[in-house]
């Protein structure tokens, strides 16, 4: 039931809920579709080549956006309140394994060093200090801190940034003034301008980013308040109304049960489900039918679905036939629940509607029960599918419907002709 993403570009990102350090390896592994283990190994191996791995890791850490998982309101709240363990968080074994790979990496690095193939000895100390320093700074500058520093208009960060900007502009001016005019002048001018621009950006940057930031913040605040209003409206329209109705109908068992079930279904879909519409897919259509049957006949209908399919004419015929089967079961079977199971894969779509009610004699339906013949069996068979109805008196009925999924080319021919 994963919705198909509409964006034509896949962007790499760092998954916030699954990262060990920066989430770079996990994000890359997702993007490239390989095991995260191989990505980590690649980084370690690349580090042996003059530290390319570490540099690549740091750069990716800086430039890949962090992405929080998108959850439904119910799950998000449960996650935030600590009612739910993050199921994706890396286990201790994964941490150990990564440590192990890292150790092996460091070992090989040391070996290279000892055999004199690494960085020259005089540089090792400073390089190590530089790497550690860079890492510390980098860690602090991760996303939020970096943005804050770039936006400060007071304090030490502000002074440092202004000083750096001023020095750069001064350097640019000096550079430009001390150069002799000649063919190289254009290049020099460009270089000087570039340096001056960087300086200016450092000085003016905060006001610009602040402006942009304020805009985003405003927009976000607006969205937040709208969301809150939507939640309030939703609770008012659904839960409060239902509770009021329940109080009025407290004496009427059947009405109370129906109201409660309808409210449960709505709230559940809103909290944990997706915003699917009945026109979207087989599962959405089945759920909508089940809801209607529950409301009209006061029989709970449980829909269980594996996979999903788009509602092309064939699938939609099955969905409609399943609806008929549910209505029949609710009307005639005298049961207190109906089970609907749907399974869709690349080759076939199958739907089973089952009750444990009174049952009937299947051989007799051909002549005298047009509902079953016309709206279930014929409808599915017209679309190249099959219907099997099994029923025994006292043991209930199961209607099994199957249609093959046509390949995309076939559908295309049909629509274009």
């Amino acid at each position: 039931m994963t919705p198909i993403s509409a964006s034509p570009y896949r962007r790499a990102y760092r998954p916030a809920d699954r990262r060990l350090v920066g989430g770079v390896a996990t994000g890359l592994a997702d993007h490239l579709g390989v095991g995260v283990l191989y990505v980590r190994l690649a980084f370690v191996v690349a580090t042996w080549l003059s530290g390319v791995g570490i540099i690549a890791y740091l750069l990716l850490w800086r430039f890949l956006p962090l992405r929080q998982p998108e959850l439904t309101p119910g799950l998000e709240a449960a996650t935030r309140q600590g009612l739910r363990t993050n199921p994706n968080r890396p286990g201790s074994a994964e941490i150990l394994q990564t440590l192990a790979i890292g150790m092996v990496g460091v070992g090989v690095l040391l070996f290279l060093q000892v055999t004199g193939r690494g960085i020259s000895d005089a540089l090792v100390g400073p390089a190590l200090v530089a790497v550690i320093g860079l890492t510390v700074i980098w860690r602090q500058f991760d996303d939020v801190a970096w943005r804050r520093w770039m936006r400060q208009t007071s304090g030490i960060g502000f002074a440092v940034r202004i000083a750096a900007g001023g020095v750069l502009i001064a350097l640019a001016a000096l550079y430009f003034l001390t150069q002799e005019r000649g063919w190289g002048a254009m290049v020099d001018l460009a270089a000087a301008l570039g340096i001056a621009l960087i300086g200016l950006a450092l000085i003016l940057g905060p006001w610009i980013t602040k402006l942009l930031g304020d805009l985003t913040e405003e927009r976000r605040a607006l969205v937040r308040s709208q969301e809150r209003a939507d939640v309030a409206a939703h609770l008012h329209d659904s839960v409060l109304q239902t509770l009021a109705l329940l109080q009025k109908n407290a004496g009427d068992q059947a009405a109370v049960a129906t109201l409660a079930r309808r409210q449960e279904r709505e709230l559940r879909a809103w909290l944990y489900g997706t915003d699917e519409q009945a026109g979207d897919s087989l599962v959405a259509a089945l759920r909508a039918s089940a809801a209607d049957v529950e409301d009209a006949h006061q029989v709970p209908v449980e829909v269980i679905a594996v996979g999903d399919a788009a509602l092309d004419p064939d699938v939609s015929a099955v969905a409609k036939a399943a609806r008929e089967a549910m209505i029949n079961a609710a009307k005639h079977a005298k049961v207190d629940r109906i089970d609907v199971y749907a399974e869709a894969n690349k080759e076939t779509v199958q739907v089973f509607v089952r009750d444990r009610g009174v049952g009937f004699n299947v051989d007799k339906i051909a002549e005298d029960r047009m509902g079953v013949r016309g709206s279930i069996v014929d409808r599915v068979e017209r679309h190249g599918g099959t219907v099997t109805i099994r029923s025994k008196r006292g043991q209930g009925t199961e209607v099994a419907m199957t249609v093959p999924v046509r390949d995309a080319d076939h559908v295309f021919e049909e629509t274009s002709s």
Partner: protein
Amino acid sequence: MTTLRVAIVDDHAMFRRGVRAEIDGPVEIVAEAEDVESAVEVLVETKPDVVLLDVHMPGGGGLEVIRRLHLRHPDMKFLALSVSDAAEDVIGIIRAGARGYVTKNISGPELLDAIDRVAAGDAVFSPRLAGFVLDAFAGTIEVAQIDEDFDRLTEREREVMRLIARGYAYKEVAKELFISIKTVETHVSSVLRKLQLSSRHELTRWANDRRLI
């Protein structure tokens, strides 16, 4: 046969009371707990046979309870009992070591039957869980770190899961497939085992094979 000793772990007092009212008698309720910390404490103390475990709870949820107890107390059986509709949560708790999953609108007798089954060492798949499992093995649900072994269900196991998802009871599955109930239970248990073949074991094996740890 002695009465089964059962614990109820759920953060809603109303719900605990309801469950207690429905099943107390046929089984003995030896403990109740409302969050991860108190649950771990009281479960270690009372050592019940079966723990009815909510999925969402303060302190990290049912998953955290299993994580802390499962390895040290392998005899304690966990049965997840939840209103959560999120496949990832439910599959996660089963993968961590729970022996089954039932929804909170289950009737008293059905719950007792599930408790008996879990206590006897069998797995309990509600139709909904069977649906989740089939989805997970088909790759439709995203489960963290899917193993190589994860997408292998035999045709027979798939058939059994499908029938359970369709609402068949174990004995009806047996009748439908012309096998004994014992065989159905074996298939179901082996599906559970495959589901629980967690990346933890896989990773340890990987590292061992390469003499990394």
